[in-house]
């Protein structure tokens, strides 16, 4: 636990946003940057090794890799984009899912213990990529004017309502929905990691408390920290799923035909 506190660069008990600003390892390279590169290496190596010699009757490792791929392809991409158009987007959705998943899981892996997505810059980069994709395919499908019409004037609405609805839909689809995609994964990872920090640093603070009878309470604090780690594991997987799911959902909405 002491090592964890030291690894986090924690300075004192009430942990805050400053605990997420880690000192550079060398030059101006910080821990999250190293973790992002590491995640890419892990994902690429794993899938290259698992798919090296594919067989019709899969081995155990091939089965696991196929399950992950099948989940990204069928449960996320096909379900949200539709059977007709989903094929070109499978690589994007699948990469987003695995990339966010591995980066989130770094939050609970010992030694690494830092969810990359808890620095807003990384989700923002993913968000820009998804944003460009959504609107590029939308403009391609519906044409320039057609896409704005598709976004701002949904069918089967009384004419007068469009005065209110059109600006709301525009801001919603072009600003808030994709922006919240980034804020969601950032805030969830930030909050989860902060929660773990509160209980681990709180345990240390109790142990170092001057009054002797407070010291045993630190055990309770660390026990809660362990329980919270399991909760974190659930949330991290869920957030990766949601990120891919919503990206696919937005692409599907941009491609949808008028009914």
């Amino acid at each position, binding site marked *: 636990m002491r090592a964890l506190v030291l690894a986090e660069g924690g300075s004192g008990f009430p942990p805050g946003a400053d605990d997420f600003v880690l000192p550079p390892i060398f030059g101006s390279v910080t821990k999250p940057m190293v973790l992002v590169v590491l995640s890419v290496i892990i994902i690429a190596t794993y899938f290259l090794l698992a798919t090296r010699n594919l067989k019709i009757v899969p081995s155990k490792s091939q089965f696991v890799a196929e399950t992950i791929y099948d989940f990204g392809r069928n449960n996320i991409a096909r379900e949200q984009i539709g059977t007709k158009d989903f094929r070109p987007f499978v690589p994007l959705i699948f990469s987003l899912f695995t990339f966010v998943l591995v980066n989130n899981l770094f939050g609970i892996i010992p030694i690494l213990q830092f969810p990359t997505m808890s620095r807003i810059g990384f989700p923002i980069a993913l968000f820009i990529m998804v944003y460009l994709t959504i609107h590029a395919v939308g403009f391609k499908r519906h044409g320039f004017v057609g896409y704005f019409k598709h976004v701002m004037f949904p069918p089967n609405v009384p004419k007068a309502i469009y005065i209110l609805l059109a600006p709301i839909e525009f801001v919603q689809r072009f600003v808030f929905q994709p922006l919240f995609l980034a*804020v969601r994964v*950032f*805030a969830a990872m930030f909050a989860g990691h902060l929660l773990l920090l509160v209980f681990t640093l709180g345990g240390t603070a109790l142990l170092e408390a001057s009054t002797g009878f407070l010291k045993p309470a630190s055990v309770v604090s660390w026990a809660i920290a362990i329980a919270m780690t399991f909760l974190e594991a659930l949330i991290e997987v869920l957030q990766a799923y949601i990120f891919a799911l919503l990206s696919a959902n937005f692409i599907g909405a941009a491609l949808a035909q008028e009914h």
Partner: protein
Amino acid sequence: MSSIVLAEAATSVNINAGLAAIGYGLGAVGPGIGVGLIWAAVINGTARQPEAQSKLMGIAWISFVLVEVLALIGLVVYFIASAA
């Protein structure tokens, strides 16, 4: 007398962090109710028609994240407000 006390309190104590925490607590009520309603509907639907569960779960996750993001934005706003 009381005005001096008030002036001292205003200059020496910064209660922004506490106010922000209360605000976030209040702000988390809405998403809490919303998430509860969504899963209650899923449980009801599954109880009535167990074979529709997989379909319901897909819809539930999408609506769940739309509600959940409000609580998460509240957390971000808490940090902005408590720092000011």
